[in-house]
């Protein structure tokens, strides 16, 4: 199934090798229909996911990021998803201050046998991202032009904004 409006968006998924990746496989084997916007990165455990992976993806042009690991109490490495839960929740609550819509990032738990649930997660998340549309990109080059302005001001004896003007003895 292609995207609802015929245009694909870029969604990055970080999936735990032991459960969600298997869950996605189960969904595939079961021939459950899924949207195709998701690009999957397989990781050894949701505890492997540095919150910066998600930020990097969002800044580099992903329209959404989905993280999925083992259900709590089911981690292959006993406790990886507990640590992940803290980090991911921290990131989710921090995102609003940066102006990135926290709805573009979601984390959830899907086990290897839950093909149907995986289909539900992907479909819901993809349609949410489609409702939000493409993510705004951080553009605008660098501030070097402004530095040239500052240099001109300093040469003209007006001082620059980073130092105190005329207060030095």
């Amino acid at each position, binding site marked *: 199934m292609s995207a609802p409006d015929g245009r694909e968006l870029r969604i990055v998924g970080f999936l735990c090798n032991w459960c969600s990746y298997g869950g996605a496989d189960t969904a595939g084997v079961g021939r459950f229909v899924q949207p195709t916007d998701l690009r999957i990165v397989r990781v050894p455990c949701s505890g492997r996911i*540095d*919150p*910066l992976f998600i*930020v*990097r993806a969002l*800044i*580099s042009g992903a329209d959404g990021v989905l993280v999925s690991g083992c259900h*709590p*109490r089911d981690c292959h490495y006993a*406790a990886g998803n*507990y*640590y992940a*839960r*803290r*980090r991911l*929740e*921290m*990131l989710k*609550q*921090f995102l*609003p*201050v*940066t*102006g*990135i*819509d926290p709805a573009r990032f*979601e984390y*959830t738990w899907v086990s290897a046998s839950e093909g149907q*649930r995986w289909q*539900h*997660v992907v479909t*819901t998340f993809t349609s949410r991202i489609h409702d939000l549309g493409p993510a*705004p*990109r*951080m*553009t*605008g*080059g*660098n*501030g*070097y032009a*402004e*530095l040239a302005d500052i240099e001109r001001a300093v040469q003209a004896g007006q001082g620059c*904004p*980073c130092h*105190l*003007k*005329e*207060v*030095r*003895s």
Partner: protein
Amino acid sequence: MSVLQELKEQIRAALPELDMVLGWEQGFDALHMRPLFIRTEKDLERLVLNPLCVHSLATYLPGLLRGAGNDKKVGLVVKGCDSRAVIQLVQEKLIPRDRVVMFGFGCNGIVSLQKLEAGAQGCSGIGSVEFAGDKVVLSAPDTKVELPFAEIRSGKCETCRYHNAIDADHFAGARVEEGAVPAKHPTLEEFEKLPLSERFAFWQEQMRRCVRCYACRNTCPMCVCRDHCIATSRNPHWLTQESSTAENFMFQMIHVMHLTGRCVECGECERACPLDIPLMLLRRSMNGVVRELFAYESGTDPDATPPLLTYQVEEETINERGW
């Protein structure tokens, strides 16, 4: 006996046991103090203590105390926020507590030179600064400007709840009473009223100005990776050398994420920023999240477990979203 005299006496008594004591001295003019490394009693004479002593001296500690076979003992003068930085470093086992001697005092807040500059418009060549109660008097050869201290106080002091150095080995002067402060900083409160798109535009503009001089990182007492910082490493290659708004923003995100549950809100990053980017907005927001989710305040307890290095099987504050 003034606080400074008392402090000097305490340092004089402790100095023979220590390799050095870090304090502040007068810099190139009356407005600028600079860090002072006291090794002898003669150096001690240059020690000053006033609200212009802005630097967090805790930043030097990991570098001074690092290394096998290093048995240096270092003392330092600490404000409340600096003492939190020391405690946080001790908690992370980055410095040994028994080789650090903290000389604390009751801090009434420090000056923001940006605000002082704005307040002292037209006052040229300031020769001396006097702090009298809640007033600051700036004297120049031909003018005198009087400013209320609250107006030029650094933004971080508005929500400070640690005026007195925590866990200080020596304490000079009287303790400052901790007044009631707003739980959320007014600047963050204002900022959060903006819609997401405006916040994004705000950071886009701020990050466009960033020149990635890394002053915020180098002055941060918690940034201890130094040469191994992932922002300047080629492997892993998190950031390109390209100077673009998105890369600058990513650098700041690295800084914030690596300070989760560690930042003591000393405000050094914002103070050091040559372009006055309001970095503390990000820090305050993150610290708010940590307080809310984990009921944790960094740099207050050397024996606490950092919130991201522990977990509960059932998290009371994290809502398991039903899918």
